[in-house]
């Protein structure tokens, strides 16, 4: 053991504790944005609705509409096509060829055609690389902003993914070690001593939320780490170790056999026939369709179906150019395996999207519990060190970020809707509004004398922002509630109502002081001390 003078030991302990809290704050950010991301499809539908909502983005005959769209696209981009549902039920078909950027990185370059599933008309068209096309996607921009924050904290690849992967591992480690060392807490599963010491009450509330949420904390952390590490680290490492660095070979082995090579020209693939057959086999709607070698004799169509009611897994079917069924393919490899079965569970277990709104609501509530556990844990940790000035500043930042992050996420929506109405760079506006909200909250928490005041002000601002957002959405999209009723836009109604209720709950919370907050040092000391 290294012997250190008391002063150095104290400094190292402070650094150790600070780094843990900063990691905890990042984890809190990932969890909060993950909670919002559960409803990413609904957020996209709400933020950018079409005049009326189709029953499905995959109505009968949508394949023909995609074939018509193909005729408007330069044949050089007919190498592959992928079609999937976007905001408001729009059908997006991306005709593209595989290319490399100046740095030699593989990219896709082509044309996106966005089709209204009801009129079957092309309503939008974008051209460029896959990245450029993603940046031009205004209807989905708000939902993508939230998901990107959750997946990689808006950091460049692979660093963002690596960081969120590490945070997921830390959360999993906390869940496992917590289960092992705090088993006695299960005896306190129903104990909340609200009438006793306020710190004890906050500690109980933290422990109870953590204990009830433990199974899901583990599931979400494990699957989240898997998704973060798989593409940023897992596949490159596997390519290096087992395939001599040949990433294409790894993908070929993982995804299955590549399409045969027969460049003989042929009619466009029979998408509708393949989609109809896949619907009958799976008993559900398609998730996406990938058509390789468009307009060639060796065209291969991969139709991935959403889970049927009562099931968890997607199903994947392969079809030839004429839309004839070839085989059902596992998600990994070309023959069924236990690895493929486990892999196919990762998505539904992480996203909670296997049974519509009901499963999403359960995942949302459990994610909220996870955010609550993280935030109250950080508050308790910093409160107990209130006598040390360094911890006092960190305690203020915990309050600022804890209450400021939800506010900043709502502010991002305040940056989005004016662009929808007036034009401008949506990404710059959303990021500016988000950072303004976050930095403003941090500044407020560090300037005000009493943290209880910071909490009250931030919660009040969040309440106002939440209650005002449906009105801004109305102005931005031009879709009133009467229009929404006529068009069957359920997501617009549900989210507008949810935001208003959440705003009222925040106002209610403003009137209830936080027990832990009353103990925080800033309640007695000025920032200068």
């Amino acid at each position, binding site marked *: 053991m290294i012997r250190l003078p008391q002063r150095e030991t104290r400094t190292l302990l402070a650094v150790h504790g600070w780094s843990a809290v900063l990691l905890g704050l990042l984890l809190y950010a990932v969890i909060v944005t993950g909670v919002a991301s559960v409803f990413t499809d609904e957020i996209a539908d709400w933020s950018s609705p079409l005049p009326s909502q189709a029953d499905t983005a995959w109505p009968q005959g949508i394949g023909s509409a995609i074939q018509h769209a193909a005729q408007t696209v330069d044949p050089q981009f007919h190498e592959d096509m992928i079609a999937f549902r976007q905001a408001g039920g729009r059908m997006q078909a991306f005709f593209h060829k595989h290319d490399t950027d100046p740095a030699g990185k593989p990219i896709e370059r082509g044309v996106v055609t966005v089709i209204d599933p009801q009129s079957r008309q092309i309503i939008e068209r974008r051209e460029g690389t896959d990245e450029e096309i993603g940046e031009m996607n205004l209807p989905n921009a708000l939902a993508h902003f939230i998901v990107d924050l959750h997946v990689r904290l808006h950091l460049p690849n692979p660093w963002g993914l690596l960081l969120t992967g590490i945070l997921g591992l830390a959360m999993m480690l906390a869940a496992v070690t917590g289960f092992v060392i705090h088993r006695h807490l299960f005896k306190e*599963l129903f104990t909340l001593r609200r009438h*006793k010491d306020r*710190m004890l009450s906050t500690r109980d509330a933290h422990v109870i939320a953590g204990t009830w949420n433990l199974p899901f904390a583990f599931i979400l952390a494990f699957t989240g780490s898997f998704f973060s590490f798989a593409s940023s680290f897992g596949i490159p490492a596997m390519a290096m170790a087992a395939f001599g660095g040949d990433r294409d070979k790894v993908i070929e082995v993982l995804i299955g056999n590549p399409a045969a090579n027969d460049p003989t020209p042929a009619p466009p693939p029979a998408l509708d026939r393949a989609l109809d057959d896949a619907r009958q086999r799976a008993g559900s709607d398609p998730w996406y369709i990938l058509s390789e070698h468009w307009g060639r004799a060796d065209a291969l169509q991969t139709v991935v179906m959403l889970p049927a*009611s009562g099931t968890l897994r997607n199903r994947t079917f392969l079809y030839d150019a004429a839309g004839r069924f070839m085989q059902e393919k596992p998600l990994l490899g070309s023959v069924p395996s236990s690895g493929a079965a486990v892999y196919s569970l990762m998505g539904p277990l992480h996203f909670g999207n296997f049974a519509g709104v009901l499963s999403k609501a359960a995942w949302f509530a459990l994610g909220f519990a996870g955010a609550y556990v993280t935030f109250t844990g950080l508050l308790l940790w910093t409160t107990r060190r209130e006598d040390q000035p360094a911890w006092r500043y960190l305690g203020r930042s915990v309050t600022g970020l804890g209450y400021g992050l939800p506010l900043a996420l709502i502010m991002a929506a305040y940056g989005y809707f004016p662009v929808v109405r007036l034009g401008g760079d949506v990404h710059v506006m959303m990021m500016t509004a988000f950072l303004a909200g976050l930095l403003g909250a941090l500044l407020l928490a560090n300037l005000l004398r009493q943290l209880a005041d910071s909490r009250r002000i931030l919660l009040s601002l969040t309440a106002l922002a939440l209650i005002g957002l449906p009105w801004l959405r109305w102005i931005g999209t031009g879709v009133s509630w009467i229009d929404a009723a006529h068009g069957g836009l359920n997501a617009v109604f549900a989210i507008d109502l949810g935001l208003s209720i959440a705003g009222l709950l925040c106002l209610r919370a403003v009137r209830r002081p936080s027990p832990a907050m009353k103990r925080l040092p800033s309640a007695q000391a000025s920032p200068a001390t």
Partner: protein
Amino acid sequence: MSLSLLLLVVLGAVPSLVLLLMLGSRDPKRLRNLPRNARESVTPWPPARRRLIGALAALPGLLMMLNGEWAAFLIWLGLCLCGGWLWVHRLAPPAIGATMSRD
């Protein structure tokens, strides 16, 4: 989501949540920590009964698993965990007279 799945989840979650509420209301540690005036009216259940009620609360989930109803099982589990968390807050005594001493 189909109606049959919704029905299955409701049929499984409602009895489990009721049993969890009963379990919580007779939990010995919770009752020990109640204010004195509230403690006299309710007696804790013995361990054997608590284990039985706990097992009965878990039974719907077990049946769902045995029948391969994994989607229903996961939603049932999520609802039970959220519901249990909610029950604890509903069963907790009000914060009247709480002190401010250091933990």
